């Protein structure tokens, strides 16, 4: 009984916090159909600002700054107001210029803002966690129920604050003039403008309220778990989004229901399942996938929101004009599919292995080809087929773990076989790992077939998290967070390809195969079907393209490449751990393709080259040396600017279009 009672209280706390943050997602999604990933970071900023205001002094950028040491009940509303204002500023600078951009642009901008805010917060408050200060309200003696359940006064406060703000918001949306205007904008923004509703102001209002709810949730979360940390918003943000989707995005009661449901499932799974604490997140995401598979609109949601808006995910082809004109001409020329040109490019890439004699830079080139190949795989799914996939790294992980477990744990560990005797298995594994990942891709793809647009992204994200949690927690299989060491380097007829030069050449050979394979596929009827799905799925279906089959094929092909690269990565690094397969990796890869150019062959490599060379150059800068996280802030900033001025990416002119000229 006592554990049940305590779990009940914990679930209610967590549910209240999830529900508040879910409201932020649901409100903004309801009004402009944008998943504002940055709410996770506004959640975190709410916590940091509140904690800072409550302290007598706090270290900002490493300097001790005096702070007002306000009581909790003053600091809380102040932090909420500051973050609400920040949310409006973010909307104004990063999202409003994208109102008419291709559908992917606002989502990428949201992810970029999220990366940017997290990095900046880490620069300001440092990577250490900040303890939540003691305050009078938190020190009151707990109330005891049935002699076994201890309820702290703050727990009652959390619950009351959550319920009061939800009721307040519901009344506001239902009965006030602004609330009505919000509902009208959500239903039909054009008609709303025609009755005189200032739609931009309504959207700003949705961000204001949403950010305030995220901040409130963040403060309550930090208070409950007694700390603030730059990455604290990440997982709760995902959970809140999950809760919003579970309940039916766009619905405020749905957010409350979804938040509570998720919190109860997680808390009770953690309490009653064996080793439940490790698996609680996986259980939450599994529920998300089940609900989306059987009821894509969520429990209380409306069906229409799952309909992808008409129009291409990646936007129209650009006309060479203005600042980008020389870039466009160059990539237009490069992307024309000229065989001589392609061979020349490959020769230049091979020649690099002999021109560059510095091992350090060759190692960097190995990274470039690894990331370039990986991004090429994701590009099939996102760039050619137009399916937004945030779980691609899972395939990479599958390939890497498959070969590592086979070589290190099974063959050497169990049977004592020396990897040098079976050097050829690496080459076989490239395909076996790819095939395994392709199979998983098709399996994962099946329940997502009914989903479109953002829902698809959220579901793939859930899959990714489950695979990551399995890699971390199934210690017998994967050695958990310690990772797997001593993976043999690739070798050829017993000659180990240990040096970076050979690894680069091997990676390059694989890249050429991968790009060649993708190009053959894309320029066949398969690719035409993919591009048709990307440009307009409904029209493609109406024209007789079996979209389900081609979407699965797209996942499987992307998965195959992901798995293959995973095998190469494991053997070239000789060490893997779950850290290599975080969601951030996935976001990074997506950003690389977006930067390089979605739906192009060269884009993924271009993006990888830019990013990895930037990382190296940045290491020499004093500012970056003091604050390494600012590199990610720079990436976020560049992407937001790119989305505003050039959403198609650098190599847009090289994009494969629906019309085949030759």
């Amino acid at each position: 009984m006592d554990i049940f009672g305590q779990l009940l209280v914990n679930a209610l706390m967590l549910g209240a916090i999830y529900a508040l943050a879910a409201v932020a997602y649901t409100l903004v999604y309801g009004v402009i159909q944008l998943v504002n990933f940055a709410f996770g970071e506004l959640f975190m900023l709410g916590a940091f600002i509140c904690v800072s205001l409550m302290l007598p002094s706090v270290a900002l950028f490493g300097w001790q700054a005096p702070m007002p040491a306000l009581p909790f009940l003053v600091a809380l509303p102040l932090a909420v107001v500051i973050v609400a204002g920040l949310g409006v500023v973010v909307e104004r600078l990063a999202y409003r210029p994208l109102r008419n951009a291709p559908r992917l642009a606002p989502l990428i901008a949201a992810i970029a803002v999220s990366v940017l805010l997290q990095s900046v917060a880490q620069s300001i408050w440092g990577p250490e966690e900040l303890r939540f200060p003691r305050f009078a309200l938190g020190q009151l003696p707990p109330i005891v129920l049935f002699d076994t359940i201890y309820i702290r006064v703050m727990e009652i406060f959390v619950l009351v604050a959550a319920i009061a703000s939800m009721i307040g918001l519901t009344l506001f949306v239902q009965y006030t003039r602004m609330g009505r205007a919000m509902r009208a904008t959500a239903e039909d923004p054009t008609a709303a403008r025609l009755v005189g509703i200032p739609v931009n102001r309504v959207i700003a209002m949705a961000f204001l309220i949403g950010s305030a709810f995220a901040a409130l949730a963040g403060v309550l979360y930090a208070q409950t778990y007694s700390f603030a940390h730059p990455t604290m918003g990440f997982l709760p943000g995902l959970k809140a989004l999950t809760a919003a989707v579970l309940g039916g995005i766009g619905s405020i009661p749905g957010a409350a229901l979804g938040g509570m449901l998720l919190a109860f499932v997680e808390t009770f799974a953690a309490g009653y399942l064996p080793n439940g604490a490790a698996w609680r997140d996986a259980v939450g995401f599994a529920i998300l996938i089940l609900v989306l598979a059987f009821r894509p609109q969520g429990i209380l949601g409306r069906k229409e929101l799952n309909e992808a808006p008409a129009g291409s995910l990646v936007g129209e082809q650009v006309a060479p004009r203005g600042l980008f004109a020389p870039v466009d001409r160059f990539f237009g020329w490069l992307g024309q599919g000229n065989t001589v040109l392609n061979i020349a490019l490959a020769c230049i890439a091979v020649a690099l292995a002999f021109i560059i004699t510095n091992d350090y830079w060759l190692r960097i080139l190995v990274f470039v080809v690894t990331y370039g190949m990986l991004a090429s795989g994701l590009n099939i799914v996102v760039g050619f087929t137009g399916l937004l996939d945030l779980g691609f790294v899972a395939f990479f992980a599958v390939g890497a773990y498959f070969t590592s477990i086979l070589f290190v744990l099974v063959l050497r560990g169990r049977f004592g076989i020396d990897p040098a005797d079976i050097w050829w298995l690496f080459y076989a594994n490239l395909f076996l790992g790819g095939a395994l990942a392709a199979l998983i891709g098709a399996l994962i793809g099946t329940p997502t077939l009914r989903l479109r647009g953002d829902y698809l992204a959220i579901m793939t994200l859930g899959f990714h998290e489950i695979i990551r949690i399995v890699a971390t927690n199934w210690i017998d299989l994967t050695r958990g967070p310690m990772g797997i060491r001593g993976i043999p380097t690739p070798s050829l007829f017993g000659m180990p390809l240990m040096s970076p030069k050979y690894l680069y050449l091997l990676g390059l050979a694989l890249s050429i195969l991968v790009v060649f394979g993708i190009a053959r596929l894309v320029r066949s009827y398969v690719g035409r079907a993919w591009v048709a799905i990307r440009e307009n799925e409904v029209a493609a279906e109406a024209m007789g393209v079996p979209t389900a089959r081609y979407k699965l094929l797209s996942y499987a092909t992307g998965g195959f490449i992901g798995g293959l690269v995973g095998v190469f990565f494991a053997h070239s690094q000789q060490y893997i751990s779950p850290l290599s397969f975080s969601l951030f990796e996935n976001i990074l890869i997506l950003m690389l393709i977006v930067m390089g150019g979605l739906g192009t062959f060269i884009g993924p490599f271009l993006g990888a080259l830019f990013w990895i060379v930037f990382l190296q150059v940045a290491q020499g800068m004093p500012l970056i040396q003091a604050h390494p996280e600012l590199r990610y802030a720079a990436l976020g900033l560049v992407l937001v600017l790119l989305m505003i001025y050039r959403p198609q990416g650098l190599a847009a002119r090289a994009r494969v279009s629906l019309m085949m000229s030759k």
Partner: protein
Amino acid sequence: MSTPLLEVGGLAVRYGVINAVEDVSLSVAPGSIVSLIGSNGAGKTTSLRAISGLLAPAAGSIRFDGRDLAGVAAETRVAMGLAQVPEGRRVFPRMTVLENLQLGAYLRPGDASVPEDLEAITTLFPILEQRRKQLAGTLSGGEQQMLAIGRALMSRPRLLLMDEPTMGLAPQMVELILERILEIRRLGTTILLVEQNAVEAIRLSDMVTVLRLGRVVHTSPGSEIGDDLLRDLYLGHDV
């Protein structure tokens, strides 16, 4: 003749590289009904959307009541007295009839004459009174059209832009809507009407402007347009 309430001169609207509307000029005198007619793709709706501010013109001027509308936001135009009944009605489907009408008066918060106007609209369209608590999405097409007109009237416009108000309606309903358009004009609202149903539009209007392939090909009082001219205009002979 008095100064026009709306004066459009040399209007051009482009979608990317496509010229949807080129050099369109028309004027609407206060108290009149002016029709913009033409076949599919002639640029009628595009012209109307430029006037209401949903589209930015590439060239030309739009003057309402003597004021240049360049750079004026759509919602500000509503406040100035320019309301549009959009194509396809576009009522707010999950809000009640009453809420839809109240949203029409969005720019008149605290205006004491709002209930009065509500009553005037329910006199014009009594069915809306019966359905006031019903969700707008559950109304029939004709009822939704009435609601869309009523919603636009709630802003007390001086000029009402109507985009295909009879589209997809039963003949009886078409008749009723057209009759109400005359009634709205009688109550003092000037009307610019876009219609595919040219015969009816001409019968109703004081002035008719004909568009073809994005250009004005004819402007005259409705009574001067005979069947021959109409046939030529639609079938595309040069006029």
